[in-house]
C-alpha cells in the first residue's frame, strides 16, 4: 500500500517517490514488504491514465495540481473494490434474503456512515438497538435515539475507564508491596463488630413485613400505561423503583399496593425486568390486577391529583391515598382526575399553594417526590417538612417563614437569605453543637438521628435528663413530639423495640427496652448484656466530639446488640 505508507515517510521521501512514479509511469508499483519487516499485501496500482495527467510536480512552485486527490482516492477505490468483490461473494452465501434482515443491515450501514460523517452515534450498537432504530419512522427520531445511545455509551465507557484505572493502580500497589503475612496492614482492633449489609436488609424486611400487616396502605394506580410513551413508561418504572426503596428504608413504611397492574402489561414486565424475577417475588408490596375500588372500601379512598378542587389539609392515617403512577412529559391535564370522577372517589391535592410561593412549572410531582412527601407528612405531621421535597426551582420558599421573619425583625434580612428563620436556628445550633461547626449543624444532627432510626428500626426515645450536648442533638425529636408518643407505647406503634438513648446516663451507653416491659429500669431484660459495651459506657456521651460517621458506627453496634438481645430473650 504505497499511498497509505506515504504518511510514514518523511516529506522529502514521499515527494521523491511521487516523482519516481510519475516519471517512470510505472503501471505496477508495489512494495512487497513493510519496512518493519511485516509482510503486507501488495496492491497493484493501476490508474495510469490519471497518473499521467495528474503528475505531481512539487518543485514547479506556482502550479499546483488540484485534482491529484482524485487519482489518489480512485487508486484506493480500485484496490478496495477487488477486496469488496471477494467479500460480497462470501456475503452472498450467508446474507439474509428476508426483507427484515435487509432493513437491519441497511440501518447498521447507515449508522456506520453517520459515524464516519462525524455525527453523534455510538461506536458499538447491539442488534436489539438496531432493531429499535429500524422501527423508528422518522429521521429525527433515529438521530435522537442514536444520540441517546451515544451519550449512554459515553457514560459506560467513562466508568469502565475509571475501573480499569483503579485496578491498574491496585495491581501496581500490590506489585510494589506484595501482600505477605508481615506486610499485610494490621487488622483494626475494635470492640465493635462489623455491621453487615444483610443485617440491615433483615431489619428493613422486618419493618416491611410489619407494614404489610399493620401499616397504612398506599395505592399506586398503574392503569395509565396506555397514556404514556415508551420513554415515559420507562421513566415511571424508574420512579416506581425509587418509590419502593424510599418506602422500604423509611421509619414507618406504607403498605404499598400496586393496583391495576396487569400481569401481561408492559408496566409489570418492565418492573420485573428491572428488579429481576426473584427480587420482585421477594418484594414486600402487594400487586394486584384489581382496581383500587375493589380492594378498599370506597369511602376510605382518596385520589391525590393535582387537578382536584379539594386541598388536603391534614393527613388522615385512616384513609387510603391513591397516587396515579403516570409520567406525562406533555402534561395531560385532568387524566387522573377523570379516573377519580368516573369511579366517584374523593379527591385531594397537596396544599402546594397554601404553603409555597409557587413560581414556575406545573404543580405536578414525580412519584418519588410524592412518596417522600407522604412519608414525611405521616411521620411528622408538618407540611413544611413534607413539602421540602418539592423541587426548589419551582418555588420561592414557604409562606409562613416569610411572615415570621417579617414579624421577627432583622434576623434574616441582613443576610438577605431566602430562609431567614432557618438560618437563625442554624446559627444557634452551630454555636452549641460541637459537630455542627459550620453550616447546617442541626441538619446534620438530624441526619445522624434519622440514620440511627433507620438502622435500628425503632423510634429513638430521648431522655430529657440527658446532658445538654446530647439533648441538643436529639432536640429535633422532642420538637416533633414524636419520641414522646413512642415512649408511651401509644396505640398504633408497632415497632419491635424502643431504643432509649441517654446521652449521659451513667453506666450504659444505651438501653434497650421491649414493648410491654417497664421502661428504663436498671434490671430491664433489654439492658445491654455486652460486657465491653457496658465497660466503656461510663462517662461516654453521645454528643462530645463525635462525628456523624463515628456516631453511626457506634449505633451500628448497638443495633446489632439489640438484635441479638431480641433473639436471646
Amino acid at each position, binding site marked *: 500500500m504505497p499511498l497509505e505508507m506515504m504518511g510514514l515517510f518523511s516529506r522529502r521521501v*514521499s515527494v521523491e517517490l511521487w516523482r519516481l512514479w510519475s516519471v517512470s509511469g510505472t503501471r505496477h508499483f508495489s512494495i512487497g514488504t513493510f519496512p518493519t519487516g511485516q509482510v503486507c499485501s501488495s496492491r497493484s496500482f493501476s490508474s495510469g491514465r490519471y497518473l499521467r495527467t495528474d503528475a505531481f510536480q512539487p518543485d514547479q512552485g506556482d502550479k499546483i495540481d488540484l485534482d491529484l*486527490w482524485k487519482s489518489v*482516492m480512485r487508486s484506493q477505490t480500485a484496490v478496495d473494490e477487488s477486496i469488496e468483490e471477494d467479500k460480497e461473494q462470501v456475503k452472498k452465501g450467508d446474507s439474509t434474503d428476508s426483507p427484515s434482515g435487509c432493513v437491519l443491515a441497511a440501518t447498521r450501514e*447507515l449508522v*456506520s456512515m453517520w459515524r*464516519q460523517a*462525524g455525527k453523534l452515534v455510538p461506536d458499538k450498537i447491539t442488534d436489539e438497538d438496531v432493531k429499535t432504530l429500524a422501527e423508528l419512522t422518522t429521521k429525527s427520531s433515529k438521530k435522537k435515539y442514536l444520540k441517546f445511545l451515544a*451519550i449512554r455509551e459515553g457514560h459506560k465507557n467513562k466508568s469502565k475507564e475509571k475501573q480499569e484505572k483503579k485496578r491498574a493502580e491496585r495491581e501496581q500497589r500490590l506489585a510494589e508491596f506484595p501482600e505477605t503475612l508481615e506486610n499485610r496492614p494490621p487488622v483494626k482492633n475494635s470492640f465493635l463488630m462489623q455491621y453487615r449489609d444483610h443485617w440491615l436488609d433483615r431489619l428493613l424486611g422486618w419493618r416491611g413485613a410489619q407494614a404489610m400487616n399493620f401499616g397504612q396502605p398506599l395505592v399506586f394506580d398503574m392503569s395509565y400505561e396506555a397514556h404514556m410513551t415508551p420513554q415515559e413508561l420507562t421513566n415511571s418504572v424508574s420512579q416506581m423503583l425509587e418509590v419502593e426503596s424510599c418506602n422500604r428504608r423509611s421509619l414507618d413504611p406504607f403498605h404499598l399496593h400496586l393496583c391495576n397492574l396487569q400481569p401481561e402489561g408492559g408496566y409489570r414486565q418492565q418492573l420485573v425486568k428491572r428488579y429481576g424475577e426473584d427480587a420482585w417475588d421477594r418484594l414486600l408490596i402487594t400487586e394486584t390486577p384489581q382496581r383500587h375500588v375493589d380492594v378498599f372500601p370506597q369511602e376510605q379512598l382518596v385520589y391525590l391529583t393535582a387537578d382536584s378542587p379539594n386541598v388536603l389539609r391534614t393527613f388522615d392515617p385512616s384513609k387510603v391515598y391513591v397516587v396515579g403512577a403516570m409520567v406525562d412529559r406533555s402534561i395531560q391535564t385532568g387524566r387522573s*382526575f377523570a379516573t377519580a370522577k*368516573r369511579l366517584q372517589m374523593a379527591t385531594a391535592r397537596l396544599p402546594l399553594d397554601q404553603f409555597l410561593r409557587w413560581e414556575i412549572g406545573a404543580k405536578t410531582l414525580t412519584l418519588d417526590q410524592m412518596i417522600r412527601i407522604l412519608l414525611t407528612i405521616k411521620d411528622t405531621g408538618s407540611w413544611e417538612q413534607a413539602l421540602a421535597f418539592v423541587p426548589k426551582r419551582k418555588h420561592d420558599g414557604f409562606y409562613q417563614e416569610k411572615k415570621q421573619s417579617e414579624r421577627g425583625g432583622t434576623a434574616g434580612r441582613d443576610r438577605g437569605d431566602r430562609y431567614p428563620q432557618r438560618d437563625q436556628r442554624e446559627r444557634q445550633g452551630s454555636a452549641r453543637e460541637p459537630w455542627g461547626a459550620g453550616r447546617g449543624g442541626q441538619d446534620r444532627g438530624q441526619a445522624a438521628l434519622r440514620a440511627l432510626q433507620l438502622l435500628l428500626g425503632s423510634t429513638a426515645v430521648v431522655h430529657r435528663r440527658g446532658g445538654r450536648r446530647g439533648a441538643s442533638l436529639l432536640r429535633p425529636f422532642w420538637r416533633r413530639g414524636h419520641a414522646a408518643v413512642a415512649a408511651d407505647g401509644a396505640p398504633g406503634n408497632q415497632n419491635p423495640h424502643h431504643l432509649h438513648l441517654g446521652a449521659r446516663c451513667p453506666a450504659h451507653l444505651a438501653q434497650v427496652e421491649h414493648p410491654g416491659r417497664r421502661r428504663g429500669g436498671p434490671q430491664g431484660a433489654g439492658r445491654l448484656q455486652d460486657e465491653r459495651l457496658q465497660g466503656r459506657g461510663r462517662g461516654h456521651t453521645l454528643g462530645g466530639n463525635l462525628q456523624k460517621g463515628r456516631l453511626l458506627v457506634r449505633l451500628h453496634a448497638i443495633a446489632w446488640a439489640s438484635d441479638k438481645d431480641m433473639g436471646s430473650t
Partner: protein
Amino acid sequence: MGATFLFQARLCLYGLSQSSGIIHLGKMCVRTMCTKGIKPGERKSPPRKNDTTIRQTESFKVRQMPSFPTSVFAAGNAKRTTEMLKRKTALCLVCPDGLVAPDRPLSPTEWKKQLEEAPCSPERFDVHMMTLLFKTGAELDIAKSLLTFVALETGTMSYQLLLQYLTLCVKGGHDAEALDCYQIMRGAFPALETGASSLFIKAFSRTESWREALPILRDMKKVIAPSTRNYSDIISGALLHGAAAPAWQLYDEVLGEGLTPLPDTWRALFEGGARGERLLGVLGYMRDNQVYPERNLADAIKTWFHSLPGHHWRGEWTTVSPKGVCKGCGSELESIQLTPEEYTHLEARVMADIIQGKDVFQKTTAEELESFKAFVKRKPVFDVVVDGLNVANIVKGRQSEMLLAVVCELERQGLTSLVLGRKHMLRPSASWDRRNMGLIQKKAHCFFTENTSEDDPFLLYATLHSGNHCRFLSRDLMRDHKACLPDALTRRLFFKWQRGHQLVIHGTVAQGRRVGFQMISPYDTIVQSTGVSWHVPYDDSVDRSSYEVPQSWLCLTNKP
C-alpha cells in the same frame, strides 16, 4: 463534564438539523466555550503524541481566557454566555479562533506550514479548515488544494472531509465536481449516508444525468423516508430536462406517502407546463388541504394559465370586498356556510371527539353531559351562545358587569342567547355581583357547569345543536378543541364553520358604551373555481399564523 457533554451533543444536533453535513464540527471549539469541567486530558479524541498534546493545552488556556473575563458568578455572565452561544450556533459552523483561510490554492508545502501553525489538533485540521472555507465561501480551487494536501499526507481522506467538500461544491453550483465526487465516494465507502445522498440528489438533479438521482433515492428509501426536499429536487430536475412522466410519478409518490409537497415542487410542476388536468388536480389538492400558495408560486400559476393555448386566461392580483365580491372580476366568492351534510357530519364529530373523546370524564361527567343535553332540548333554539367566563374576563375586576353589558346588547338586538359559565360564578363575590348575575339570568338562558368541567365543549355543542344560524361569542380560538378532531377533513370543516360562526367583541368596551362585534366574513378563503374563473388566495405576508387566512387574491378569468 456530563453537562458539557450534553450541551455539546445538543449543539451538534441543533446544527445538524439546520443544514446537512458539516455542522457538527463545532464539537471541540464548543467544548472550550464551556467553563465547566474541561480538562485537556479529558478529550474524547484518542491520545496524541506528546508535543501536540502540549500545544493543545497551551492553546486551550490561551483561548479560554478572553471569552470569560469575569467570574461565572458575576452578574449577567450567564446571559452573556447564552447570547454568545446563540450567536455561535446561529453560524452553525464553529471553527477554532485563529484559523485563517488562505486566499489562493496552496501547495502541499505551504499547507504543511499552515498545519504546523494551526491552533487546533492536527488530526482535525483538515475538517476545520474545510469548514472555514465553506463558511467564508472560498473558491473551490483552495478546497481542492487542501484535499490534495491531505491525500498526499495521509494517503486517504475521511468521509467527513469529502462530505464537506461535496457541500461546498453543491452550494457553489459546481455540479460536475460533485459528480466526480460521487464516483469517488461510491468507490471508497461502502454506502452513503443521508446527508451525502441528499446532496448528490440535489447535484444530479441540476445536471443532464438527473436519472442517476433515482437509484440514490431508492437506496435512501431502504432505511429512511426521503424528505419532501429530496423529492422536490428530483421532480424539478426531471421537469427541467423535459421528463414529465417520472416527475408526476414521483409527485404521486409524495402524496402516497402522506407528505405535503413543497411549494418548490408545485412551482416546478407549473413551470414545467403541459398536463392541464394534473395541474388542475394540484389546485384541487390545495383546495382540499387548505393550502395557500406563496407569491412566487402564485406567479407560476398565473403564468401557466396565461400560457394555456386556445384560452384567453387573464390573471389579476386583487382583493375581495367585505361582502365577498372579487374586486377584479366582480363575481361573488363561495359562501362560508357549510352544506347540510357537512354540518351534520361536523356536529356528530364534535359530540363524539371533542366532548366525549376517549373519556367523557376528562372534560365533564356523564351525568352533567346528559343534563346539559336535556337542558338544550328543553330550551328554545338559541341565536347566540356566550362563553360567559371568556367574555367576562375581558375586563378584570368587574367581570359580571361586562357579561351583563354583552347580554343586554344581545337582548336589545332581539336575540335569544345562552350564557355558559361555571358554578363558582353564582357565589357572590367582588367579581361576581349577585345583582348582576340575577339580571343576566333573567335576560338570557344560563347553564353553569361544575367548576371542574370545561365549558368550551358545551359551547360548541349548544351552538351546533341550535342550527346553522346560531353563533357563539368568545375570544378563544378553540385550537385545543380543533386538535381533538381526528382527521384533516373534519378539522378543516371545523375551521370553516368557526370562521363563519364565531363572534368576537370589537375593541375595548368602555363603561356605559354599547358593545360591538367584529364582522363575520361571508365568503370562504380557499382556492375556488367556477369553470370560467379561478380565485386563488395567496400568502403575501411572512408572519401568517396557521389559524389566520390570507387577504390577497389571484383572480383568473377566461374571457374569449
